[in-house]
């Protein structure tokens, strides 16, 4: 065994096993000066009130009670400067889609302001015994529930969608009974990965591929895979596709110890939970990055968290190095390999897809890549279903009181999906996929799965 693999990299870690945190109090970093608290007020001064952010906010478009990102961000921070006012509770209606970030011509750090305000609201103003708080906490800590469920997947699949249980969940917890819970896989990705031989097997596959491709057998092609919770517990076929595609390009893969990326926790204002998860993730990926690995993720919200939200919100050793070396999976291959050339030579059985770009793909500038790439793939038609938000935004659309807003936002997308030629959906984000399936009944695939079909 070489030093590239330490035994714990393939070990499954119990979700509720907590690492000792050096500082249990949440201490966000400052972005604008050396002050030790997060002071985003100078960012508010950059706002010249053009309201362009408001016109891109999917929640404001359908919910007249939601004052929009301009209010949530710069205006609220400006008010706070005058006196120590409370955070307006409408902050909980922001779905953290981060579209406003991308829209602001003046680079006001809107989503960072929203994350900070939400954190403060939950910490200081929300009743910790309220149903809403408990429900949000359970939803945000999806991985814990998923970990239990994965031990008894069949029972969990039945129980989670069992009518009376769902009725009770809606009444007592505020989890909408309109949605079907995603099915848990009989075998998790990590179980499969271990059974397959873990990193050792991957190294061998990668070496064989390099030889086949005429590359140096010892080439430094190493990636650390952030699979996240969903492709581990629910859609291991996506994670397996990533493994096979990357190996076919000669990359050896490790699947290090990891927690939830924190995305659902940011969105629910549970910054301390998110920070604990981030600490584990950063520490295990930072070691690998130092040893020449790049981090890749198959979920666009996970890559977004590692690339942007972590360094914006937390101060953890190695966080910047991890952020700089994290990539969305397709993005990575496009930068490193002649993916386009390989696709142009491949062909698959005839099929048509209705593609939706997740908001968090948009924010990373990777929202067009699936369309661009598969345009050249023989046998495939991929249609973009427009730039609207799917409306689910992670845990948002699961909340009983948000369900209707969520479906209203998704309306445009459903319509365009029906209009598109294909009756299979495609997206990079697992919760967008849930929403697409829920709204249309279509089967949904990840671009990596089509790539696997084309190249492996």
């Amino acid at each position: 065994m070489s030093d590239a693999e330490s035994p714990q990299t393939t070990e499954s870690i119990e979700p509720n096993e907590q690492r000792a945190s050096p500082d249990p109090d949440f201490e966000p970093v400052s972005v604008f000066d050396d002050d030790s608290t997060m002071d985003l007020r100078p960012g508010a001064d950059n706002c010249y009130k053009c309201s362009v952010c408001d016109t891109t906010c999917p929640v404001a478009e359908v919910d007249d009670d939601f004052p929009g990102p301009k209010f949530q961000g710069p205006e609220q921070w400006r008010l706070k400067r005058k006196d120590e006012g409370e955070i307006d509770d409408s902050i909980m209606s922001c779905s953290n889609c981060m579209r406003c970030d991308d829209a602001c011509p003046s680079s006001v750090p809107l989503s960072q302001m929203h994350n900070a305000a939400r954190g403060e609201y939950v910490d200081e103003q929300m009743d910790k015994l309220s149903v809403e708080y408990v429900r949000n906490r359970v939803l945000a800590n999806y991985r814990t529930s998923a970990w239990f469920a994965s031990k008894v997947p069949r029972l969990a699949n039945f129980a989670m969608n069992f009518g009376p249980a769902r009725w009770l969940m809606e009444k007592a917890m505020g989890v909408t009974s309109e949605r079907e819970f995603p099915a848990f896989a009989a075998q998790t990705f990590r179980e499969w990965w271990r059974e397959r031989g873990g990193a050792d097997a991957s190294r061998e596959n990668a070496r064989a591929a390099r030889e086949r491709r005429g590359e140096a057998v010892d080439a430094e092609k190493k990636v650390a895979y952030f699979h996240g919770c969903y492709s581990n517990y629910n859609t291991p076929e996506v994670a397996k596709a990533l493994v096979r595609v990357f190996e076919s390009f000669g990359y050896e893969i490790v699947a290090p110890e990891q927690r939830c990326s924190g995305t659902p926790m940011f969105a629910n204002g549970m910054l301390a939970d998110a920070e604990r998860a981030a600490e584990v993730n950063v520490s295990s990926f930072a070691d690998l990055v130092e040893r020449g690995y790049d981090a890749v993720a198959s979920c666009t919200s996970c890559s977004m968290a590692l690339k942007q939200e972590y360094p914006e919100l937390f101060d953890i050793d190695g966080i910047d190095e991890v952020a700089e070396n994290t990539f969305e999976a397709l993005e990575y291959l496009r930068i490193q390999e002649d993916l386009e050339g390989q696709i142009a030579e491949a062909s698959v059985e005839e099929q048509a897809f209705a593609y939706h770009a997740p908001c968090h793909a948009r924010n990373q500038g990777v929202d067009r890549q699936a369309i661009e790439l598969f345009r050249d793939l023989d046998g495939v038609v991929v249609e973009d279903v427009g730039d609207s938000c799917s409306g689910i935004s992670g845990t948002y659309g699961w909340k009983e009181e948000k369900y209707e807003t969520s479906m209203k936002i998704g309306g445009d997308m459903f319509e365009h999906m029906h209009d598109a030629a294909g009756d299979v959906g495609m997206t990079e984000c697992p919760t967008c996929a849930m929403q697409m399936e829920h709204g249309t009944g279509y089967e949904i695939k990840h671009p990596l799965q089509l790539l696997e079909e084309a190249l492996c």
Partner: protein
Amino acid sequence: MAIREDVLVVGGGIAGATAALAAAETGAQVRLLSHKKSTLRQASGLIDVLGAVGDNGTEVEPSGLVADPFEAVERLPNSHPYRVVGAAGIRDGLRVFDEAVGDAYAGTHTDRNALVLTHGGTVKPTARYPESVAPGLASAAEKTLLVGFAGLTDFDAPVAASHLDAAGVPFEVDGATVPFPVEFRDDALTTRLAKALDTDESGARRGLTDAVADHLDGHERVGFPAMLGDDDRREVRAELEDRLGAAVFEIPTGPPSLLGLRLEDLLFDALDEAGVRLSSGNPAVGYEAADGRIESVLVDRRGREVPYAADEFVLATGGLVGKGIDSDRESVSEPVFDCHVPHPEDRYDWSEPAAFGAHEFARFGVVPDGDLRPTDGSGDADFENLRAAGGVLGGADTAREKSAAGVSIATGAYAGRRAGESVTGREAEEATR
């Protein structure tokens, strides 16, 4: 290096979009790279080509309104970008634009400027305007009613009407303020008002016409702020006209502007149609070059610089507003390629004391050669394969001349076409060899 195109256009405003369309026309593979959402969302949606020129060619007098922009180009100073592309370049830019937007815009029937009513109650010379604006031109002597919505402070119809009256428009004009038929919070988004008319929420269309009917006293046309529907805007306007028995038109608004949003959609649909690849969300921050040619532009993807390679490049990052030109206390610069931007040594010479004087900073920008390539201080092109278009070019005071979008599409079309031809021409040459 894996991300590679024939032509890479940097900047997603109207200049970049036009450049990408023109380059794609030559058969080149084009990518349009943009940091933020386009500034088109804030713009009025009007395409001003040239509205005012000073008589002596160097000074621009607001009073010197231009009737025929093509003829007036000659009177611009030599350093003006229009003098590089000429009247033919302006025509070509408009052609690219007209083909992209189709019948959503009017103004193609004449070389002469149209006079459009603005939400401030002035009249503005422009070359292309949304079809929904067309029935409201100042040249038509029809008794006009302007209608504003209570709570919408951006447009005060009675004030606008009295301004127009004072300006001596050749028709009778009145203003009225009515409540919007669906109740929204006070600072409701224009997009939500538009949507309500689109879907006819709670009978919004009928409610609106009922409210306006009381003020309709022989008026032949009725103007509303531009929020009459979004996806179904034609249907909305037709129904309002039908119910009112008068022509209905839209008045361009300040940001956020629905007409600007619609123009952005139109142009991006055209880009998609033309097979242009689109990347947005990350800024260009530098470049790699060898032998006087740029090889790639470096794009900052959250901390990691990724090279985007191409044979030809177009710089269309906008002026001081679009962040294509940067200024701090000491100097003015072009941040991506570090092109030369001339400016007075003394900061106090940058602007005139009078608010509407001939601000020096309004003309700040890169200095092009005869092929729109940015030049260094001594007049030589910085790079063989880099051209510039739109607001990043110096030498035009687009706000005072009323030429912003015109300069962008004329120079965009020129730079894009030249970039595309350099590649496809070279390819053709290689093929015959």
